[in-house]
């Protein structure tokens, strides 16, 4: 931690660790929470809509927009030529045009922007364009990209030891492949930005974004401006899940372009179908493996190929695929290993961040392999998992990851044993086998899978955060920090953290909108890091102010500052007690600074992105799930019957919020691996068009898909690292708990088939029926 001022005055434990309700809960249930489309519109506000390509790959030969311009209510139409600065909204590599310029690279790519006097008028006008394309060959899948050596970024290989030799010497060897589907974020609030031109060539943009600073930068670049001319604000999002980390940029840029050009406020809110057609999704993967192991299932050597569909541009595909490499070990020690990572360039939407950020795809690969090994050896998959776990951190054997980081708190084995006992794993495996022996149509499966997930941005520089705490003269406090609220409870936890430092009730602390004009140079609220980073920064700011107040109070009474306590809205030392607000007004009159900034940068982490070796993660978060499912071998339909989860959040700041993240992440992961299927038209007139572009065709879990028995428990413990109140990040890790559902389904398929079922993900009813082979 960056030294601020010495820790003075002990806060009273009265909010940390309690299940405080969501800071906006009352607003949510009464319809009073303001999302961007709910902000009262300034007079003169215009509305935008994109005109989308109807070609997966082609040159724009002619784009006739006369009818668009003539349509009722239209004020202006913009194309790439109208962009004053850089026509790019890419987060890392500049290959992401705001509006296609001569070349379209996927079906649904924005080519022009219509601005009209209503949302409806803009949408209607956008469909009036007459566009001619010269079609170019389209690459749609990861495998096609591999065959064509079509990359958004060069291939990466990571190796440790000699996998070839290990494979050659292993008693058993298996080769195989599996397809793992992508996923649409389906945040309930679609992408939206509301841009307001202001005096002196400045712009304020309300953006539904996880990354206000990046929105500020891309808008500035697009306009040919400098950063101090643009401010970006976000009070809350209606869901993000990674889908508003970089994908909000195109919308923010387009709204800002139109606002600058027209001199009027412009709102751009995407219709759901447009949103799903335009914005990136979770990368789908084609995975190949060659694994060698001994009689106990211990992995001796592994060669794995991880090829992903990145879409037409790089976006965040580099770090996403890096994280897949980092997570292919999950909880297992891989001794001799070679991992090839291929980043396929395809004529589809540019895939992006999504909860887990490539980690889930890497972990899925190793779990799939473990199941193969177990089946080949006739072992319980849990036993194969056990023999492959990382070793005791006290020793040196089997404790270092393939990227050179020591696993210092390997709690996976203990956590898994606890869950196996509490979920009656052994007995229920027997019960499932008995059920399957006496039922030919319905088959059950039971699986227990572990999770280990690395916490920190792999790009070390992003692991920093800032916050501002204002204590007003009446004793209330306002907190502004760099993290964004997308429902995960960040504002709730930070409010608890600051209330705790001052010993104040929560009502005395208010959270302000996240705004680049308050806290600058922020990182995305991503990588599960929101509370870890911003919580520490807010805590540091509060501690600085508290130290001044403590010193002031101590000096008043001639007591040592260490004697000062902040609790229950009071400040006390020895026999002296004063209401917090009374001390504050006195301090104000004594001209003591009552507001301050805090800053935090994560310690210990470093990593060489060329060799991919180092300590990219501050710590690991763990968990495990046990799922029981049933499948219908006549239709492929399935149902999750019971799920038991034990998850590690360190020392929880807010158990209710953490459990909410665990359950929500689990169900979202379950959707990814079961019913959520992205289907791009493979050929024909609309080749490359995403046909599952609305909830009518893209099926996220509904209420009845929530398992009727869902037991979720927090693992007792605390972070071995000095994280905020010794808690652990919880945003992403629980998503991977859903592997238990997938592998339980696979077990059920295998029980029906009589040999290991080649189940692909997502395990839709059709995929299940295919995996069990012809029946009846």
């Amino acid at each position, binding site marked *: 931690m960056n030294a601020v001022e010495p820790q003075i005055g002990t806060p009273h434990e009265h909010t940390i660790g309690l299940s405080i309700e969501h800071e906006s*809960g009352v607003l949510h*249930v009464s319809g009073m929470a303001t999302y961007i489309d709910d902000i009262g519109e300034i007079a003169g506000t215009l509305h935008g809509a994109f005109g989308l390509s109807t070609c997966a790959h082609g040159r724009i030969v002619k784009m006739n927009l006369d009818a668009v311009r003539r349509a009722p209510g239209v004020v202006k139409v913009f194309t790439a030529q109208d962009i004053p600065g850089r026509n790019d909204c890419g987060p890392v590599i500049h290959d992401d045009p705001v509006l296609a310029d001569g070349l379209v690279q996927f079906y649904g790519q924005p080519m022009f922007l219509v601005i009209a006097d209503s949302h409806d008028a803009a949408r209607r006008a956008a469909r009036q364009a007459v566009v001619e394309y010269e079609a170019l060959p389209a690459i749609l899948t990861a495998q096609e990209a591999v065959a064509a050596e079509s990359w958004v970024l060069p291939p990466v290989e990571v190796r440790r030891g000699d996998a070839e030799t290990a494979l050659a010497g292993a008693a058993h060897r298996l080769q195989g492949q599996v397809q793992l589907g992508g996923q649409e974020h389906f945040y309930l609030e679609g992408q939206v930005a509301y841009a307001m031109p202001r005096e002196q060539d400045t712009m304020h943009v309300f953006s539904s974004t996880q990354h206000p600073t990046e929105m500020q930068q891309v808008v500035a670049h697009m306009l040919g401006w400098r950063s101090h001319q643009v401010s970006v604000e976000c009070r809350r999002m209606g869901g993000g899940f990674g889908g508003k980390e970089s994908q909000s940029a195109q919308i923010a840029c387009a709204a800002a372009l139109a606002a600058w050009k027209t001199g009027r406020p412009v709102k751009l809110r995407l219709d759901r179908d447009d949103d799903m057609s335009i914005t990136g999704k979770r990368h789908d993967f084609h995975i190949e493996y060659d694994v060698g192991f001994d009689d106990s299932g211990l992995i001796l050597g592994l060669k794995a190929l991880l090829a992903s569909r990145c879409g037409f541009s790089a976006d965040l595909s580099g770090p996403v695929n890096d994280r897949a490499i980092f997570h292919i070990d999950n909880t297992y020690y891989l001794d001799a290993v070679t991992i090839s990572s291929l980043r396929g360039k395809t004529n589809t939407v540019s895939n992006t961040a999504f909860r887990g950020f490539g980690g889930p795809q890497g972990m899925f690969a190793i779990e799939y392999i473990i199941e193969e090994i177990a089946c080949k050896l006739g072992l319980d998959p849990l036993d194969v998992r056990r023999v492959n776990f990382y070793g005791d951190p006290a020793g040196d054997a089997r404790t270092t990851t393939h990227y050179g980081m020591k696993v210092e708190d390997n709690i996976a084995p203990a956590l898994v044993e606890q869950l196996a006992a509490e979920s009656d794993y052994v007995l229920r495996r027997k019960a499932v086998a008995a059920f399957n022996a006496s039922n030919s149509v319905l088959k059950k499966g039971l699986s227990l899978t572990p999770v280990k997930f690395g916490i920190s941005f792999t790009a070390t520089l992003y692991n920093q955060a800032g916050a501002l705490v204002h204590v007003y003269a009446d004793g209330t406090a306002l907190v502004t920090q760099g993290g964004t609220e997308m429902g995960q409870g960040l504002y709730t936890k930070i409010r608890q953290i600051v209330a705790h430092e001052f010993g104040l009730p929560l009502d005395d602390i208010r959270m302000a909108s996240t705004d680049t004009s308050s806290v600058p140079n922020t990182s995305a609220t991503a990588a599960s890091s929101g509370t870890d980073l911003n919580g520490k920064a807010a805590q540091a700011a509060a501690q600085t102010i508290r130290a001044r107040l403590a010193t002031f109070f101590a000096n008043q009474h001639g007591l040592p500052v260490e004697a000062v306590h902040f609790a229950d809205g009071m400040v006390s030392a020895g026999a002296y007690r004063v209401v917090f607000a009374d001390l504050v007004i006195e301090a104000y009159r004594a001209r003591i600074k009552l507001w301050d900034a805090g800053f935090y940068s994560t310690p210990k982490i470093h990593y060489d992105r060329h060799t991919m070796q180092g300590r990219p993660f501050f710590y690991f978060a763990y968990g495990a799930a046990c799922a029981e499912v049933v499948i219908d071998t*006549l239709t492929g339909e399935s149902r999750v019957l019971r799920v038991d989860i034990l998850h590690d959040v360190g020392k929880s700041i807010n158990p209710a919020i953490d459990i909410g993240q665990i359950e929500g992440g689990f169900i979202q992961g379950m959707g990814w691996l079961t019913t959520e299927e992205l289907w791009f038209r493979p050929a024909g007139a609309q080749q490359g068009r995403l046909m599952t572009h609305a909830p009518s065709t893209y099926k996220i879990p509904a*209420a009845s898909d*929530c398992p009727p028995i869902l037991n979720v428990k927090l693992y007792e413990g605390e972070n071995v690292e000095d994280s905020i109140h010794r808690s652990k990040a919880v945003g992403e890790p629980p998503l991977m708990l859903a592997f238990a559902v997938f592998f339980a389904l696979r077990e059920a398929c295998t029980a029906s088939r009589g040999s290991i079922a080649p189940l692909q993900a997502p395990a839709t009813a059709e995929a299940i029926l295919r995996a069990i082979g012809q029946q009846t």
Partner: protein
Amino acid sequence: MTQRAIRFWHRGSIVEVSDASPQRTVLQWLREDLHATGTKEACGEGDCGACTVVLGSRDESAPGGLRLEAANSCIQFLPTLDGKALFSVEDLASEGTLHPVQEAMVECHGSQCGFCTPGFIMSLWAHYENNRADRAAPTRDEITDTLSGNLCRCTGYRPIIEAAQTAWQKPCATMSRAPVRAVLDALAELPALEYANGTQTFFAPRSVDELATLYSAKPQAQLLAGSTDVGLWVTKQLRHLGDIIYLGKVKELAQISHNDKWIEIGAGVSLTDAFATLIADEAQWTELAQRFASVPIRNAGTLGGNVANGSPIGDSMPGLMALGTMVVLQQGAGIRELPLEELYLGYQKNALEPGEFVRALRIPRQSAQPKLFRTWKISKRRDQDIAAVCAAFALSLSNDNVVTSARIAFGGMAATPRRASAAEAALTGQALSEASIRAAMQALRSDYQPLDDMRASADYRMQVAQNLLWRLFLEHTTDTPLRVGEVMA
């Protein structure tokens, strides 16, 4: 009919609208005209429930004579509110006190991002209003069914389900329906609605004669019932519908009648009521009824609309065809009946003449001539999905187990819902046995050539269609559980 403004009850008084397009949605009116932004848009097609509101209408069988139902405001057109009461999420809390449903949702941590929450609240509130006074706290299945039209991407639903039960533990806070009913009674005295704006007129005739006359005179007008499909023509295809004739006020179309041979369901009867009637006669409709869309869609949509729309994947038609349903058509004063399967001529083509409309469906009663009847829907997701395959079977069996008649129909297998004549022939006159079922399964290959699309491949559709025949046989001959809903952990 006389031209007049749209009038409905909202927040204690009568709202008059005279300047909105007839195809303006209730959601647009709330958000853009009233600036009541608590109700959200997230899909614009009635599939996610973020826009859920509650509509009140006159109904003698409902408590206080006021029926309260959840509806998707994103696909309901404003003139359909005429004579009704509209409730949105802002209306529940009174003087700063949250409604028990809202309070429970906060306490149970049922909201995370909060964007879907207003819709969940409204679905739960409708359920609470309709059940709190005289029924025990809802079961889990009852709650998940109530919420079948609401998607949440954050919570995983467990805390929301818990909130629905927790609300019951709090002191009862049901609304007083009488004052609303009194206003709706006054509104009912108004003449039938004819609402013109721009080049469009919205007609809401109240009798079938008025409807027949009007539609004969304006055969190009768009008939509108529940708006669960036509709504999307506007919100997604951005179509201009021209003149609209609304069926929701036609008295005769809202009727259900029985005799000992058949049940007659008026074309304007909601899916909710129609399925309740069908289930009362034949319990095998239950599973399909539950899986048919969602609660708000079933409240708005009509069985007549599902049939008249004629989608190849409409869920009701296979079952109705298998039972030998006749469709009653009217044009002017002329009425004719057709077997349902003869209504469909091809993809989105039907046998209706210009100015002719579906008046009712006549479903032979199962109690009159019991058959081995099953109708099943297979889709990616259990609730609120569109079928990959929808199947229905109705077999008459003699005492010695010979199939004396077989009616088999499928959706999702052809350009229209259609009977499987080859499979029927393979079974008819044969003993119901593994051999005859397998012959019928084989015959399905000559009945259908299904297509590949985003819902399923042709191969999958064919395999499932065949396997469902096998399931029918197993259900008839064994007692072991055959459906995933029948087993527990």
